[in-house]
């Protein structure tokens, strides 16, 4: 492992640190991410909203980091990226070195720099916050370094160890599976990754829209893995097309399950099966995976004019902003708590508001009504208020008795959470599963109750984050490698 302090005392770091007083560093204002104009972008499907920092902006922002002796930001990062080291590399103009630093720990920095909830992780622990300053824009800088490496064509293929002639399988091509595959390939394993859908990337492909995470970024990561020798098999469902037992029979030494939490939840209220009401998974899959907004695509999508999205997470924000881009005149978020409790990234909420999304908080749908053709026309909302904090510390919403509102809608997208994909847990005997349907693993090694099966990402955590899924994939690779070596 990297020794943070030793690296911090390298001459170039010391010199750089001393080249500017901390007080001066702290006086620089936080960089503003250049963005597409909100009016323009709410009519364009695929253009990314955030345009990325220019080198000048990145340099200036990197100066704000005072290179703390005890970098608390690192503790805030779920995978403990050496944040000061990559930022100081940007400051001395070594952008590729910065990208390399990120890759010591993260295999998807261009993705995480875009989608991590930084304000709850690294940036929440930044020293600047203690002095009532704005945190260093760690996420923006991470994205800058990773993009710089990719756009200048300098992505380095990691060194691959001599082939071990041992096969391992990964199930699911989301961030967990991709990270696992990359690390195992580096160690010299023959890696085959199986994906149920016709495209690679998991939620990064079918869920998160291009205006937030362009496909070309996911594509670049996949090209990288292919160059490293990872073999991808699409249209193959483990447990259906082939079973875990089939894999064992084909001499796979270990199997990693990264099958995600892809099952949509509904609220089971009256009228929820009317035409025009669907899960955010269906809506986003149609638009992202199937490209349904493109006239060339054969997959249809309903383009509502008055669209309500139920929920307050990233998925809800993605759905409502997609609806806006597809021509919704009124695009609404309906959330049963207040904006403070919304799980979505702060930046997504800000962007949504700029794009004219209406926020109907402290509201919960209790029934839908339709016309004679069974198409949804109205939703009945129960007005809520916040009660006492619950076990998780969140104040739970309670009904305001007798207070309801009837709102006109022609499309409703239900985004109230997902459950773990039951296919693998159900099809493998002896696999220990929690009451919530997630797989039980050893937290250090990610090994399940069946020794040759490891797991990580949303199938272990329920709906979580990209960075955690990625981290799990890496931990599992380490765990599986040690396990395989223990008997061969």
């Amino acid at each position, binding site marked *: 492992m990297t020794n943070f302090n030793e690296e911090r005392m390298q001459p170039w770091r010391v010199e750089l640190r001393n080249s500017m007083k901390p007080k001066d560093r702290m006086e620089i204002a936080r960089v503003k991410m250049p963005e597409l104009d909100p009016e323009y972008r709410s009519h364009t499907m695929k253009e990314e909203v955030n345009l990325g920092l220019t080198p000048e902006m990145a340099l200036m922002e990197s100066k704000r980091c005072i290179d703390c002796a005890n970098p608390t930001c690192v503790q805030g990062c779920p995978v403990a990226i050496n944040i000061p080291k990559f930022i100081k590399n940007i400051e001395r103009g070594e952008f590729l070195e910065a990208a390399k630093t990120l890759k010591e720990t993260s295999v998807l920095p261009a993705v995480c720099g875009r989608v991590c909830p930084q304000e709850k992780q690294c940036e929440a622990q930044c020293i600047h916050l203690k002095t009532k300053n704005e945190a260093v824009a760690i996420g923006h800088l991470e994205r800058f370094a990773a993009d710089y490496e990719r756009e200048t064509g300098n992505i380095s293929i990691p060194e691959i160890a001599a082939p071990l002639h041992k096969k391992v399988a990964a199930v699911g091509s989301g961030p967990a599976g991709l990270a696992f595959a990359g690390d195992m390939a580096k160690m010299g394993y023959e890696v085959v990754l199986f994906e*149920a*859908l*016709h495209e690679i990337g998991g939620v990064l492909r079918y869920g998160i829209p291009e205006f937030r995470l362009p496909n070309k970024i996911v594509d670049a990561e996949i090209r990288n893995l292919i160059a490293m020798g990872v073999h991808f098999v*699409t*249209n*193959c*469902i483990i447990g*259906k*097309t*082939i*079973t875990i037992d089939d894999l064992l029979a084909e001499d796979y030494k270990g199997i990693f399950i990264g099958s995600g939490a*892809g*099952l*949509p939840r*509904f609220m*089971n209220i009256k009228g*929820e*099966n*009317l*035409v*025009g009401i*669907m*899960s955010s*998974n*269906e809506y986003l*899959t*149609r638009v992202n995976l*199937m*490209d349904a907004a*493109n006239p*060339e*695509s*054969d*997959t*249809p*999508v*309903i383009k509502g004019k008055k669209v309500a999205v139920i929920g307050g997470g990233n998925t809800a924000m993605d759905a409502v902003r997609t609806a806006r881009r597809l021509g919704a005149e009124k695009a609404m978020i309906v959330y049963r708590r207040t904006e403070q409790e919304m799980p979505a990234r702060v930046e997504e909420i800000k962007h949504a508001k700029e794009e004219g999304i209406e926020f109907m908080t402290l509201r919960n749908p209790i029934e839908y009504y339709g016309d004679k*053709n*069974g198409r949804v026309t109205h939703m009945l909302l129960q007005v809520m208020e916040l009660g006492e904090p619950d076990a998780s510390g969140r104040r739970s919403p309670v009904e305001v008795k007798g207070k309801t509102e009837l709102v006109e809608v022609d499309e409703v997208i239900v985004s109230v959470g997902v459950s773990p*994909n*039951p*296919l693998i847990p159900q099809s493998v005997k002896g696999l220990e599963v929690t009451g919530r349907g997630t797989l039980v693993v050893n937290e250090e090694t990610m090994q399940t109750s069946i020794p040759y099966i490891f797991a990580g990402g949303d199938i272990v955590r329920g709906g979580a984050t990209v960075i955690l899924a990625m981290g799990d994939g890496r931990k599992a690779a380490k765990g599986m490698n040690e396990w395989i070596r223990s008997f061969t």
Partner: protein
Amino acid sequence: MNKIVSKEYLSPNVVKFEVEAPLIAKARKAGHFVIVRVGEKGERIPLTIADANTEKGTITLIVQKIGLSTSKLCELNEGDCITDLVGPLGKATHIDNFGTVVCACGGVGTAPMLPIAEAMKKAGNHVITVLAARTKELIILEEQMRKFSDEVIIMTDDGSYGNKGLVTDGVEMVIKRQKVDLCVTIGPAIMMKFVSELTKRYDIPTIASLNTIMVDGTGMCGACRISVGGKTKFVCVDGPEFDAHQVDFDEMLIRLNGYKDIEREQLHKISPNN
């Protein structure tokens, strides 16, 4: 990419394909289906696995042209490749020796019925198949069905072949004649609704295989959801077969038409005069 090894027209709008898919051929059971996609901008559509040949590593699909995606598929020829094909999906049919089984199918419901009739026959059942269509030309798979049925009753709306009448008339004829232990019905939703209402009156257990709209086919989207016994079920993972007497067919009919306007518009892509 899955190669088409043979193509045969069963009627002007019904095509039988044999497609390379060795893993699926091995894993599939009666009642399973696949999702296929034709072309890079293609839609994912579900099709029943009508038959499989594990030695050749092929599966048989029987496709009725009804809209854009089925038409695109039917335009493919021997030697062409289907862009994507995934499966087997859904739950396999519960096959047992029930006694006398009536298979009531209409139109393209015949294709998915074929492997079920075969499995029921092999399990020792007395299989009576009621094959229905609007008119003689639309009756498909009669010969194959005869192979797996002890009796085949043909019904046409216009009486141009077999008996004149609806599928329900044929089923009721059998029920009145002899003891029926199980009815299996596959066809247009409206047909299954009426078969279900009929057998409910006679208290005959009935299974319907539902052909809802699907996207992923793996339980991920909920496009295929319907109400069974007042509970929401996903046809692709909980089905496609359900206790017909519990299915809310009216809701299903409405949901099937959810994208009708857009679909009609899309058909212009292949034939502007539609």
